[in-house]
């Protein structure tokens, strides 16, 4: 464990010097501010406090932004070491490949946690400033924060796996952007098109919920919307959110965290220096 922490410490320094910390924090804070400004306009929803409304819109933001940040931080992890020529030496040390990855993972997770804390903190402060009763949304905010970190962890692991498969930073960058487009953007569009074509048939009721569960980004969205009872505000997947228990969505997300990291270790083991 001390070796993992040593690796994480060095990785954290590198993240700070490469300005990844600053970029991640600034991005989250900026988007949270923009959302809060937009959200302070009357929403027409009756009975919801300002923070719950903010959490609902933060959820739709996080589903795009958190995977993107995680992938941008992770694509260089293995490919960068291969390109710089630093990999052979570290692999002769008495440290396992899983421990090397775990060190990077801890550091990148800490950067994400910091960015999320700042971004969501800004949004929460704005909600409290907007009016009383915001405290009712604190539980939803805590859930959002924890699951956002889990979502980030999934894409960190998958990003390391792609980095190890690509072996060159340029190729790895292309792969992670492609993955982001497919899993976060195109997947939902495809499902939506299929549901529309299906017109409420067997696909929509039997297959579609499982396909949503299978995608970590959708599982994340499902869990947060269902758990906060805000399913109504989310267009498109609201119906499915009601048929899937939130615990399943959470289970899928956590399984992806473990699966993503396991994929990363498997891919890294196949890299010969």
């Amino acid at each position, binding site marked *: 464990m*001390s*070796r993992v922490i*040593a*690796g994480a*410490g*060095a990785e954290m*320094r*590198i993240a700070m*010097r*490469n300005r990844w910390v600053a970029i991640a924090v600034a991005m989250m804070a900026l988007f949270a501010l923009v959302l809060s400004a937009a959200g302070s306009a009357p929403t027409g929803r009756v009975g919801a406090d300002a923070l719950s409304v903010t959490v609902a819109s933060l959820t739709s933001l996080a589903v795009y932004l958190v995977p993107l940040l995680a992938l941008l931080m992770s694509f260089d992890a293995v490919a960068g070491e291969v390109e*710089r*020529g*630093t990999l*052979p*030496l*570290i*692999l*002769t*040390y*008495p*440290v396992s490949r899983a421990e090397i990855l775990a060190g990077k993972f801890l550091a990148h997770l800490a950067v994400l946690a910091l960015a999320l804390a700042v971004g969501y903190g800004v949004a929460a402060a704005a909600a409290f400033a907007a009016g009383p009763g915001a405290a009712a949304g604190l539980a939803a905010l805590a859930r959002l924060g924890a699951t956002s970190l889990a979502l980030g962890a999934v894409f960190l692991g998958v990003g390391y796996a792609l980095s190890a498969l690509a072996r060159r930073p340029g190729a790895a960058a292309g792969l992670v952007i492609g993955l982001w487009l497919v899993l976060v953007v195109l997947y939902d569009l495809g499902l939506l098109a299929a549901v529309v074509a299906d017109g409420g048939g067997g696909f929509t009721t039997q297959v579609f919920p499982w396909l949503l569960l299978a995608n970590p980004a959708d599982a994340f969205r499902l869990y947060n919307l269902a758990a906060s009872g805000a399913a109504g505000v989310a267009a498109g997947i609201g119906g499915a959110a009601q048929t899937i228990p939130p615990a399943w969505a959470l289970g899928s997300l956590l399984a992806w965290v473990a699966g993503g990291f396991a994929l990363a270790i498997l891919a890294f083991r196949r890299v*010969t*220096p």
Partner: protein
Amino acid sequence: MLTCTQVTKDYAGVRALCDVTLDVAPGERVALLGHNGAGKSTLMKIVLGLIPATSGRVTVAGAGPGSRTAREAAAYLPENAAFHPALTGREQIALYLRLRGEAAAKAGALLERVGLGAAADRRIGTYSKGMRQRVGLAQALIGRPRLMVLDEPTSGLDPVSRREFYAILDELARAGAAILLSSHALTEVEARTDRIAILSKGRLVANDTLGALRREAGLPIQIEVAARPGTVGEVAERLSGTRVNGVRVALHCGPDDKLARLGQIAGLGGLIEDVEVMPPSLEDLYTHFSRRAGE
């Protein structure tokens, strides 16, 4: 400490090593010589468990290459030591120390030892190639390694740094470390190693002490005689040597004729100013053994 038995390595279609058998004992310094592409780096990577051998057996401290025991016993200096440019020398060495379970605070002393004390807190991105090579050496010194595998360790070092580098190696060998180092610079390993192993196109063509290799090769010894002013013609004639210039005469003889030849020279007495005996250089030996293997 290190044994390699009949190690063969094929890269897709290319045989990089063929049947290499080589041992390094504790306290012994072995120089691995060979042209570019001879297979030196490949052998070292196999010894460290970075790549698998196609066939053959390797043990490091009695364990398989790449095993925990082997990795704890061995230190490596890669061919072109590279580090993360955003870290300082001290941070990088501190990381390596902690990976070997040592206190990070020892980084300062290690960097002093390789002459990087003043640059310890600058980022490695600002270092010259020679300075990065020293960082590489500093990390290889961590925790009293029992086997050191150094791939062209003095490339990029100036002559003074090379001397310091070999002084550190001598110290480690005296303390019992087994040292395997590869090099292009034959003259510098000549005096600094206990045994010479020559790889040629993946085959080990020589593996012995310098003296034994000289005897085995039986290459001619060159003797240069400096004559007193005006006597060079006479000296050349009486020794049946070749005039090199206005004062010097060159002679060649086999290893067994050396004493007889020197006796003749001594017999000329007052005609001679000075004598120099030059045994075949490592370059000559290297060429001899590499060529012999090629036939």
